[in-house]
């Protein structure tokens, strides 16, 4: 493959207490793909993302972003956590949450200014939430909250996007809006990695897929490896998806 490797994971092993959650993961994600990470509950999908991002400390292994350690490449990476990971009753507005996406490039102490605000407003417009910019975040619907999180990552203007179940608990309209934005990101040459649960939509949404169940089962183009064989290996039951239809 002559494509550049955006993310390279070597021998990654992560454990909570004694039981390994991820075992010896080797993974290469080429630049410019829209990749789904699929696997059953407890397969370590979120853990994989969190370990790559340095939120969790792995027992062994290393992660490289465009060939360099993550710590040096932070500004190339943006993260969309699970919507349920924060308290949406926090006293703040939609715009304010999106502005948080600029904090990383600002660094310590410096305050966001007009330039940062403009970037945040643009991101809000991209996700169709400009009209809600002053809304208290608890008064947003689940889908709108997810869009706000997406906008916060867009503000970071990164090259690689990691998203933890962005389609969880959103309605069909929001799902389509989000996937369109992800496809636009790919078109712009960005790499997008998504923890995904709905197997039916994998062939339609993604061009790259990683099967994960503590160990890496398979990774590659959807059209080559998204088949009953890999699904059965990953989910443990005899899985049949009629993806040809």
């Amino acid at each position: 493959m002559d494509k550049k490797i955006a993310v390279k994971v070597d021998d990654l092993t992560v454990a909570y207490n004694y039981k390994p959650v991820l075992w010896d993961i080797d993974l290469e994600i080429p630049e410019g793909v829209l990749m789904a990470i699929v696997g059953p509950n407890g397969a370590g999908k979120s853990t994989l993302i969190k370990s790559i991002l340095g939120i969790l400390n792995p027992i062994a292994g290393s992660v490289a972003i465009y060939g360099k350690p993550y710590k040096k490449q932070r500004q190339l990476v943006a993260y969309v956590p699970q919507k349920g990971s924060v308290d949406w009753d926090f006293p703040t507005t939609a715009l304010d949450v999106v502005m948080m996406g600029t904090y990383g490039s600002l660094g310590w102490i410096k305050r966001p200014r007009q330039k940062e605000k403009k970037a945040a407003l643009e991101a809000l417009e991209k996700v169709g939430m400009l009209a809600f910019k002053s809304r208290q975040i608890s008064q947003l619907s689940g889908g709108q909250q997810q869009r706000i999180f997406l906008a916060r990552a867009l503000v970071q203007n990164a090259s690689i996007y990691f998203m933890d179940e962005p389609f969880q608990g959103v309605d069909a309209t929001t799902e389509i809006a989000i996937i369109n934005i992800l496809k636009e990101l790919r078109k712009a040459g960005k790499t997008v990695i998504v923890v995904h649960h709905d197997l039916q939509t994998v062939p339609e949404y993604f061009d790259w897929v990683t099967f994960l169940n503590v160990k890496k089962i398979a990774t590659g183009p959807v059209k080559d490896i998204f088949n009953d064989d890999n699904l059965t290996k990953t989910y443990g039951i005899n899985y049949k998806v009629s993806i040809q239809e």
Partner: protein
Amino acid sequence: MTKMDITEYFQLVFTDYTLRTITLGTAILGAVTGMLGSFAVLRKQSLLGDAISHAALPGIAIAFLITGAKDTNTLLLGALVSGLIGTFWIRGIVKKTHLKSDTALGLILSLFFGFGMLLLTFIQKQPNANQAGLDKYLFGQAATLVESDVWLMAIVTGLCLLVLLLFWKEFKLLLFDADYTKTLGFNTKFIDILITSFIVLAIVLGLQTVGVVLMSAMLLAPAAAARQWTNSLATMVFLAAIFGAFSGVFGTAISASQTNLSTGPVIVLVASVFVFFSFVFSPSRGLLFKQIRLIRNRRDLELHKTLAFMHNIAETHDDISHPHAIKLLNNFQGYTRKTLQKLVEKDYVELQANMWSLTKTGFETAANLYTKQTTEDE
């Protein structure tokens, strides 16, 4: 303190040295604990303050045992050390074991408080005339505040304000989304330790005034009250400081104008009044206005339901204003004489004898009820 009138108090507060010192002290204390309490409440660490204040008790006793003196600053230094140890043990327990943070808090709280009480009773049994009065740290005694104590509080509050202003963005980010903060490259441990240390410091400073047992209320009550009035973090912190300061001033005023009313508990009670008032009367989150909105919405719905029902009947006739007997509405629950009267007032319905008929506006309004939602979705 002798008995006086509350207006007399407010005249004396500017002239009387002792009164001024105590008032200033409790006001500053209320402001700084209110500010920091906002962060504790939003991090769902409401019980942290309780654990820290209880964890400070053995420190006071040990500092006395070592120095044999009742110098406030020495004792508070001991409180600070053991408060910090307790706090970091809590963090350690949560991190290293399966225990949840409420369990860790409870464990450290009772362990340290038990040990502190043990030392306190041991000290009291000793043949030393100097030991009396150490138990004032249990419930606090504002009357013992002197000018240097107030200065210390003012300096810590100033420092706290400075740090808050400098790291405002980082604090907000960590409070809202700690994992995300990490991915942006901020040292979350540093931010966390910074804010926790200030919470410990503020609590220790309050021990002399409010005491170990009630100290956590100073942290929680102003913040809980402030949260009801605003959806902005900055406003919440500001309001909490104001509520805290006022609790201090009013609490001191009330206890100074009566005999035998201990200041600490009165301050806490005043703060609780702020909480109660905010929970009931806040326009957006308060119970009262929520209930009023609920009743109003129900009434509107009843009105709309009746109108829609009439619309359905009217549609079966060529003339929309064809008169119908009121009896027709009786088997329908939304109908009351009041709702009918309201519809007449709005000019949607005309009443003649026992017959009603829809007006043109009434017919059109009914036809357009609740269609806005569906067109928006399309």
